[in-house]
């Protein structure tokens, strides 16, 4: 049990880890809560694009999303971040979010509210990593047991 606890602590501390996919890149993101795992998934994605350590926190955006299930919510959330990054030319390093389960016409729905913070792109200052083309549904997973684990593959 202790060993398991230790593993959990390590994963929470680690926030996310990348794994290999031949043409692209995948990551696992972890969290004590569903929200924390979503935040770390966003952090992982921006660490493909840049190194978030060098991204200051002086611009914020609010995001509201509703989706029919948790994987779709994750997909829509990451996609929205990618959209804001490309259109407003912002890199993000800090993510605060809440997820609520609701009901519309007897259909379950998940609602996400987020405030994301970062800085305008300056490739002289920010590390230029890879361009993310899209989020894929391939092997996408959102799983909460002892901790929450998310698996995502990005198309590069």
């Amino acid at each position: 049990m202790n060993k398991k606890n230790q593993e959990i602590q390590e994963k929470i501390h680690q926030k996310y880890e990348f794994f290999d996919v031949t043409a692209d890149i995948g990551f696992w993101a972890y969290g004590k809560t569903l929200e924390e795992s979503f935040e770390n998934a966003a952090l992982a994605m921006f660490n493909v694009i840049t190194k978030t350590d060098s991204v200051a926190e002086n611009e914020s955006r609010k995001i509201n999303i509703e989706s029919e299930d948790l994987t779709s919510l994750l997909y829509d959330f990451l996609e929205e971040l990618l959209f804001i990054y490309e259109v407003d030319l912002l890199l993000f390093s800090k993510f605060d979010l809440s997820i609520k389960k609701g009901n519309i016409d007897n259909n379950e729905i998940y609602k996400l509210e987020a405030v994301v913070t970062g800085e305008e792109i300056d490739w002289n200052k920010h590390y230029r990593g890879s361009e993310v083309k899209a989020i894929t549904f391939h092997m996408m997973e959102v799983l909460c047991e002892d901790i929450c684990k998310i698996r995502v593959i990005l198309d590069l």
Partner: protein
Amino acid sequence: MDIKENIVEVRENIWEIPSSYKKEMRVPGRLYLEEDSLANLEKGAFEQVVNVACLPGIQKFSIGLPDIHFGYGFPIGGVGAFSARTGVISPGGVGFDINCGVRMIRTNLTEDDLHPKMKEIVDNLFANIPSGVGSKGKVRLKNDEIDEVLKFGAEWAVEHEYGWEEDLQFLEENGRILDADPSEVSQKAKKRGIPQLGSLGSGNHFLEIQKIDEIFNEEVAKTFNLEPDTITIMIHSGSRGCGHQVCSDYLRVMDKAYKKHNVNIPDRQLACAPIDSDEAQSYFRAMAAAANYAWANRQMMLHWVRETFEKIFSQSAEDMEMSVIYDIAHNIAKKEVHKIKGRNEEVIVHRKGATRAYGPGRVEIPSEYRNIGQPVLIPGTMGTASYILHGTEIAMEETFGSTAHGAGRKLSRTGAKKRYSSSEIKKDLESKGIHVRASSAPVLAEEAPGAYKDVDEVVRTSDSTGIAKLVAKVIPLAVTKG
């Protein structure tokens, strides 16, 4: 049951997975591979060929080309053609980068002309052609102008003085699919598209200066106007964030549509809709619009390449004979007419990581090339050769007029970075006399030649199976990357 045990050799380097392999298969699978590559092919890629063979309305074969590898849902290096009456359309069969493609330009310059100015040329190309997100775009579209780009493609670009009227003749579809409907493209896709129009992109996209190194077929080379030792320029790019967003949007739409229309699919990523459904029609028109964006994009970059050369050589692009050899799409779905069981039938051909390779006589081919077949452009990877082939009658009969599109990755990006460093790769390329510039730090290591399969073999297999025949080989002198 192991797939590999069920494979039957059709003729040399062509293999069939019989439709009896799985009861849901509607047609056999066909693979164009040398024996070694067949033995080494990932199991996932075989399964994907089989899965595509299960989709409603598929015609003749589910096809794996010489560069086939595992993709999301559909394999990359794959072709699936579906009946225009009873078939389906799937965004997964096209991929995220709609109309990712290659354009090739000839010149009458030689290596000796370029040699003393190479650094200047590379630096200027790098500065004049924006590479990716956050590069300051050179064009500012007004908000509704994007609709014109999506509707008219390369025609829009030529009308706005990017390039020459005659360029359009030498682009697949003349750089514009008429089915495009900008109203089927989301605001999000348009917003991503606006600032990125006229940019190369990152990853495997590149702009390369090359030299014609070897001619395999002199007669055809003459018709394509390829002179030994002259300089060519290749642009490899796609529809940028605009196309990626169109794909993402419609993957969500199709995920609902296949359930609604009760389409039975073996993998969720093959999500598709019957051809006559609203969802399929909307996707098709939006995809065509994104494809047009890509043709406009490559047209603008062509113009800046010409401008750069004009400035450096103080000569007009016309005097340097900088005309377009051809421009091909290698991620696209098209309405085409093909002979099936002796009759001309309309089909939707999905080419994902596959190049059209129309044989002689087709009206879609520019009249100058029509007796031979269309030029097929197969880019290599950074530092390796690229090839020009021509389409064939065999391709028309067997692969819906298609062949391979490139090398295909062998090592993951992290795998490549473990093995190579960007500075090492740069040094190595420069020792071979190849100049390189890249805007992102890891891209040179990630795109190291050793991270890719052998393009020579891909091209050899196309040639030996007859689905495209070799014309010329070009080798790189300089590369710029996003």
